[in-house]
């Protein structure tokens, strides 16, 4: 289906939650509103749709996309620490890529899982759990997958407050 059809379908289903819609043409500069929380917005460009949703309807939006619009392929899930919030973005789709962005607070990084809708997302959620410390409720097997064994608990490498250890020189070079 076309990108515009997808964005129209989403608007129709969840319309009352929309406060602002931006449809820039391909190549146009994106407004900085995307960095402000609590606004649901949709951005559309060639075969890409970016949707921002609040946490409460995150699972419903994903369910609608997977079951009714047929976007049942999870390409990946990106986690991002913006300093103020953590953004979780599953990317769905085969032809058109829909990115569903949701923002969760750092004090309570909990989100519901989507593995009951798409089992293939399980490894991606485990990766975000390892690297950012987000707990996915309802995940069947949230264990360590990508950080090595013996990695200390509570240290999340992708958070902005993590400073990687710089290797020290073995000898001083005069």
């Amino acid at each position, binding site marked *: 289906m076309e990108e515009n059809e997808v964005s129209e379908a989403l608007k129709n289903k969840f319309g009352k939650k929309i406060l602002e819609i931006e449809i820039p043409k*391909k*190549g*146009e*500069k*994106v407004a*900085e509103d*995307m960095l402000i929380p609590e606004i649901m917005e949709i951005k559309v460009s060639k*075969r*890409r749709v*970016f949707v921002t949703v609040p946490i409460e309807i995150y699972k419903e939006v994903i369910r609608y996309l997977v079951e009714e619009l047929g976007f*049942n*392929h*999870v*390409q*990946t899930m*990106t986690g*991002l620490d*913006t300093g103020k919030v953590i953004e979780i*973005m599953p*990317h769905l789709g*085969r*032809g*058109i*890529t829909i*990115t569903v962005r949701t923002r969760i607070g750092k004090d309570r990084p909990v989100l519901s899982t989507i593995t009951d809708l*798409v*089992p*293939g*997302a*399980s*490894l*991606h959620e485990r*990766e975000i759990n*390892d*690297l950012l410390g987000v707990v996915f409720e309802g995940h069947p097997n949230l264990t*360590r*997958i*990508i*950080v*090595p*064994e*013996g*990695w200390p608990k509570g240290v999340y*490498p*992708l958070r902005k407050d993590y400073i*990687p*250890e*710089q*290797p020290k020189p073995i000898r001083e070079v005069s």
Partner: protein
Amino acid sequence: MQEEELQKMEKKSAYELFFDIPVGPQHPALKEPAFFKFRVEGERVVGVDVDVSYNHRGIERALEDRNYIQNIYLIERICGICNVAHTLCYAQAVEQLHGKEIPPRANYIRLMIEELARIHSHTLWLGVAAHEIGFDTLFMYVWRDREVVMDLIEMLTGNRVTTAINTIGGVRRDVSDEAKDKVNKGMNILEERLKYYRKVALNDPTVNARCSGVGILKPRDAIKLCAVGPTLRASGVKNDVRRDDPYTLHDEVPFNVITFDTMDVFARVLVRIDETLESVNMIRYCLDHMPNGDVRIKLPLSPPVGEAVSRVEAPRGELIHYARSNGTKNPERYKVRTPTFGNIPSVSEMLTSKSDYEVNIADIPIVLASIDPCFSCTARMEFRDVSKGKTWIWSLKELKAHCKK
């Protein structure tokens, strides 16, 4: 540590039905370290546990500390064989952030190099798969013909494997007419050899015996577990990023999406061989229809604020990069998801015996190899801790101390 090991062994000596066979981190069946723990009963595999953290290099975090031009080199080293796909995806993502198009000649050259890399990767894989089933003769023959491709890549880009030809805004080098002639000749040789290998794969009885009916992945499971690439196409699902989400002129250059419907390792072998033949045709089309013009445009170092998603069909499957820029020279976040990571749930599914489908230990290497694993691509997050402490092996410090004793 000793007590735990001894207890485990004592438990095993009292007649236990199952025991665990570790494959990895170092194992002749794996070209890169990964850890699979198989629960076996005799020769039958009943369960598998996966751990892919061994090649963690911290690339995603490292990308945030460097500017966009420096990152090209880092991205290229995510994987040796798929380096063209990674740089292509990166360049596309950054160009999407800038919102600019690259000249058409650059697109043709990018496509040609991408398909040459695909041929290289698939012939390498064919040799490795033949070696996994013990067919060393085919392994040697295929890798001899891979030299043709590597010589062509060296002539076009200067390196046999790591091409370094994609850059933000186009490609670095142009293709001369003599180069085009040599590529044509190379394609003729390759096509003949590939057709021969196709015949061998189809007709040899031992290859058939080892590969047919092994590593079955049903289409519904493949879609549910988000398999990508030839693994998905060998289960009959017609999905290819070059057809669904065309990039660099894949909507103009004609090709077929290859699928097979037997869902097993044999289908994957045939899918890859046929894809290589398709690549040969695509390269010939590129050579015939390449327009004249520039090969590169200059782009500023800092893209505007925004985000981009870029997808490429790497030889192993669908590769996706996500870029977020905050207007500075360094990216705010760059996420890479490689095809092998997406295929791991499928391989766990393929390797568990079910009521009507048995997996033997002897099938493990070929099934693992059939998804074309590239674990260097898979584990890219940071780990700079020196002491790598596993629970039953000494840490690096202790190991060094022990060796000095």
